[in-house]
């Protein structure tokens, strides 16, 4: 196996939670999200192009996860309405360690999850990559395949939409 990027990929395993959350936000299925993440890391490891700049690996990983999730979500879903929320990666797993849960109330998270679920997928993606992963506008543009201007405008509108929805609820 020509694993030219093995060391870089092993170092990138610290981004596993971020990659998983992105996949689960896009496909809304935990087990599928896990499969996508594993495939993304494998693709990264098997890339012929050597990754020398460690700062590039995070946006690259996000782009691979995004592409895999988009391909996967083109297949018809087979999730019942009740299971959808349960299986969604957005729902906190009660077994998982969760340092952030103390800071955010369950109600607030549940409300935000509901709002995010109704957003356009691009808006969800941009919000997550900025406010969840912390990518720059240029990096988000690379992942989403849009211009930086589109990212800037989309992010702004998406935040305003989320704020308005939170206020209304």
């Amino acid at each position, binding site marked *: 196996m020509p*694993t030219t990027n*093995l060391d870089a*990929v*092993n170092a990138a*395993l610290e981004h*596993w*939670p*971020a990659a*998983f*959350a992105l996949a*689960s*936000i896009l496909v809304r299925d*935990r087990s599928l999200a*896990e499969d996508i993440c*594993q495939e993304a*890391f494998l693709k990264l*490891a098997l890339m012929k192009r050597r990754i020398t700049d460690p700062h590039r690996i995070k946006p690259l990983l996000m782009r691979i996860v995004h592409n895999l999730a988009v391909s996967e979500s083109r297949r*018809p*879903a*087979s999730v*019942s*309405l*009740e*299971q959808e929320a349960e299986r969604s*990666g*957005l*729902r*906190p*797993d009660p077994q*998982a*360690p*969760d*340092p*952030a*849960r103390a*800071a*955010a109330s369950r109600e*607030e*998270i549940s409300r*935000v*999850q509901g709002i*995010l679920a109704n957003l356009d*997928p691009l808006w969800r993606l941009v*919000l*997550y990559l*900025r*406010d*969840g*992963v912390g990518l*720059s*506008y240029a990096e988000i543009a690379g992942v989403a395949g849009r211009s930086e201007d589109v990212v*800037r*405008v989309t*992010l*702004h509108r998406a*935040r*305003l939409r*989320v*704020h308005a929805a*939170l206020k209304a609820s």
Partner: protein
Amino acid sequence: MRSCEHYQEDLSALVDGELGSEAAGDLRHHLEVCADCRQVHEDIQTTRDTLGRTFAVAMASAPAAPPALSTRAPAARRGRLLRLRWIAVAGVAAAVLVFALFNLFEVEEAAAADVLKMAADRHLDLEEYEFFATIDSEFFQVLGNIFDVKPKTSAGSTCLRILARAPDWFVIHEVENLNTRKVKAGEVVGFQGETAWKYDPEKGEVTFCKSGDMTFGFLGGKTRIKKGHSNLFKLLSWDFYRSMADDQEHQQITEITGPFDRRIRRRVFRLQPKPKADGKKQWIWSKTDVTINPAENLVERMEFDINLTGISIFGVKIELAEANPGLSDAVFDHRTYTPPGTPVVGEVKGE
């Protein structure tokens, strides 16, 4: 001078540190004198923090990362490993070839009609279904392109999600337009015995009536379900196929299972009119392809197509997503699909 609206468009970029120093300075100066923009600025910061916390929870719920990928073999062992690798590749190729040949020429014992009957009848034993119906008309799309009009039908396939519980419940709602990938807040209709309800998001109300009087829209048209529940449950039953295939003079069942279907252990049958005895070409014809999972004895997919001179006029594909043993009553309740306080009119009690 820029308007507040223009300033506000840059507020997210300012919060994220993505605004150039000159523009950022200008915007900060404006924020000092404009209370409205200051409020929006605060709103964006609050929203960003809230989203950050939500996403942190999503990340914290991730399963454990896999262990590190194995490192390369030491240099001294590489030559041997390379030889072993080629032997392994040759072995796998031989195994695949044997497997493929075995499967390609595997003799299926059961006759097509028997398999179809067993699999179709199995649906009547199941109490709950969840499947998708994809409806499309290539013909309307072609017409739309020729006459440069954009009827709703030219927008592409429409996918309906159908949740059903035997003997008398089902709910249909439009999931999305498959071409534009947009989820529509379209009509939702539910049937229970003789009673039916429809939620129309444009009117913002739920209407109850007799199921025989209920219509719902897709592909820009209206469809009336005269005997809704009974038709739906029989759609995947043997009766449905037999009604097409029993007319032996004109219909035939043939197995069209290909190597790919065999690989995933499925059998595929085609129901279609027999060729005319005089050999004349048929200009309009229909076919139904049925995919059976013999292990589960279940019809998993049914594709029906009416074709005019090579162009599909109307196609329906029904895919069983799940034989779902866990649909709650809430799924069949109109309140699940409507905002709180939605008015209900014309309620008719079930008989």
